[in-house]
């Protein structure tokens, strides 16, 4: 069990510069992701949500790695499983369920995209698509622009293990290595790309091993140890921010549900494997850690869960009642408004 707590210098989190309230907030965000996930699956089974993408199992690695970013300055480039990343970046359950129901005020796309295609310019979350790994070169390009503009900023880019087989993945990481860009690459390795196991995705043991091919460091981290994820991420972010270039962080994790609400994982994953992973759930492990620290007790955990669940349920109801996009609005915003320009200098206008 990952509950090493006391060290000579104090507790593990204090050594990382995290306070007890920080830990509580991290734990709450993990629980929020889990309960949003449970709610969206329930809504799917009730026929109210056509399609949902689960996060359960990935909460520890997502909340841990996203936590050290500076909001309003750094940029998040997530993939579809990254509800936890987006909750850290500033989204809330309302944003999740407006997208689940395809509502007009869904901040990611106004009901245009499937749920879990996160986007918000206000929060620094870059719009994503469904083809895998296309966001990797975007993250490199954003990092290049930050460096070019002399910004004190970092890009975090998350993807699954399947993404690492795509050409865009190689091309993006290679470009980031050549230019020593301020970007951190996170592979949420849950061992399966839908049904295809790692052994059929790559011939090396770790995704992180590939970093050497791009001239930067690769790190393997236990994805269910939220503080280990935080530590590795913060170190890589600090390095990137100070001009040290990219890092590839591989987070060993597991998804508890099928790939999506339309998948059935029983044909490709033994039940024992899934049950074993659930026993090592990051939320359980982190909860135990907080109990050992005396930050929470069993009653506190129950109260926190109840509070979060009440918030999720209320937001589900409000989102369900929210306005649908007007059919004719689907014709709009293909291009910028006529007459809008980038104000290119030298044109005299």
């Amino acid at each position, binding site marked *: 069990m990952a509950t090493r707590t006391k060290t000579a210098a104090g507790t593990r989190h204090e050594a990382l510069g995290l306070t007890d309230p920080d830990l509580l907030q991290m734990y709450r965000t993990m629980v929020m992701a889990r309960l949003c996930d449970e709610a969206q699956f329930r809504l799917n089974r009730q026929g109210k949500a056509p399609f949902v993408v689960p996060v359960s199992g990935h909460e520890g690695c997502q909340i841990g790695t996203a936590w050290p970013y500076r909001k309003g300055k750094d940029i998040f480039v997530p993939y579809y499983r990254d509800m936890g990343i987006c909750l850290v970046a500033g989204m809330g359950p309302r944003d999740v369920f407006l997208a689940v129901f395809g509502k007009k005020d869904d901040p990611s796309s106004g009901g245009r995209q499937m749920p879990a295609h996160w986007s918000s310019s206000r929060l620094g979350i870059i719009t994503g698509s469904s083809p895998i790994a*296309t966001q990797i070169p975007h993250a490199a390009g954003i990092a290049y622009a930050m460096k070019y503009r002399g910004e004190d900023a970092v890009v975090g880019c998350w993807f699954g293990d399947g993404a690492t087989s795509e*050409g865009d993945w190689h091309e*993006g990481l290679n470009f980031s290595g050549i230019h020593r860009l301020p970007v951190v690459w996170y592979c949420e390795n849950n061992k399966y790309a839908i049904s295809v196991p790692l052994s059929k995705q790559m011939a090396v043991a770790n995704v992180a091993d590939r970093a050497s091919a791009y001239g930067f460091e690769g790190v393997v981290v236990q994805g269910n140890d939220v503080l280990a994820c935080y530590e590795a991420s913060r170190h890589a972010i600090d390095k990137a921010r100070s001009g040290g270039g990219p890092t590839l962080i591989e987070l060993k994790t597991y998804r508890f549900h099928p790939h999506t609400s339309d998948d059935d994982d029983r044909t490709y994953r033994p039940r024992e494997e899934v049950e074993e992973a659930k026993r090592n759930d990051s939320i359980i492990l982190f909860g135990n850690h907080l109990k050992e620290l005396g930050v929470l007790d069993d009653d506190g955990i129950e109260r926190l869960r109840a509070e979060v669940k009440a918030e999720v349920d209320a937001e589900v109801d409000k989102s369900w009642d929210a306005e649908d996009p007007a059919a004719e609005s689907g014709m709009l915003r293909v291009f910028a408004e006529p007459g809008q320009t980038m104000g290119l200098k030298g044109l005299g206008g």
Partner: protein
Amino acid sequence: MTEKNVVQTVHDTLWDAMKADDRVLVLGEDVGARGGVFRATAGFLEEFGEPRVIDTPLAESSIVGVAIGMALHGLLPVAEIQFADFIHPAFDQMVSEAARIRYRSDGDFGCPLVVRTPWGGGVHGALYHSQSIESFYGHVPGLKVVVPSTPYDVKGMLLAAIDDPDPVLFLEHKKTYRLIKGGVPDEPYTVPIGKADVKREGTDLTAIAYGLMLHHSLEAAQRLQDDEGISVEVVDVRTIAPLDKETILASVAKTGKAMVVYEDNRTYGAGAEISATIAEEIMFDLDAPVVRIGGPDVPAMGFAGPLEHAFMPDVDKISARMKELAYF
């Protein structure tokens, strides 16, 4: 006003844009020390430095993908794909990403990106240095696809493309690079994207063309005027998408006869859309069926002179069909 060829105009316009606005940068294969295989960025590395003149790895998908990232973070990147034939690995970045970023974010993000690439045949480029790609991308809402064919239009449309908030695929016919010359004003100006242009006025029939075929059509029109007294109006499409139907239809309605000339494979080419638009919207103004001249439906033009010649419409073929149409 200075007399220039097409590729010199591309070079000088990019140079001026980079001088004026430090958000503009170029990236692509061999754009740096080599100055581009067609010399479109000759001298840029020395003048603007490595951060703004990026020799990329040989990886087209990320040339476009990285440029998208730059465009999402305040820059105005001009990516070069060395030959249009090599853009296919970037199809996903163009179609799934650049074209949809504004739409899929409901207008929250934009993608002010320019992708320049030389296209077209007539230079012994064979299967992989001669392709026409305009219809692949003209089919995709969210992308603007432009094909300026004169130095004047190249300058005005390149500046308009860099200034445009949306992604623009900027196609430069490589045969015109040094063949076509014209006067270019020294001061900056834009030529609007989405507007066709009547390059020659006439009364008997309308030829609609772009790229090298525009220049062939203009030459054929002059020949018919000289030899037969036939008056051909020539419309330069200039923008494949969004297509300026108004200018095309007005010209055809005036002359009553239409011919579309393009060097892409005939089937599903841009000429098919133009022909369909004419048939759909002004059929009762027509005095003859629409004529389409395009490349044959074989994979591409061959390297050998006779094979290349057999593929590409030329002035003889075009003027012969114009004459037939005039006497229909």
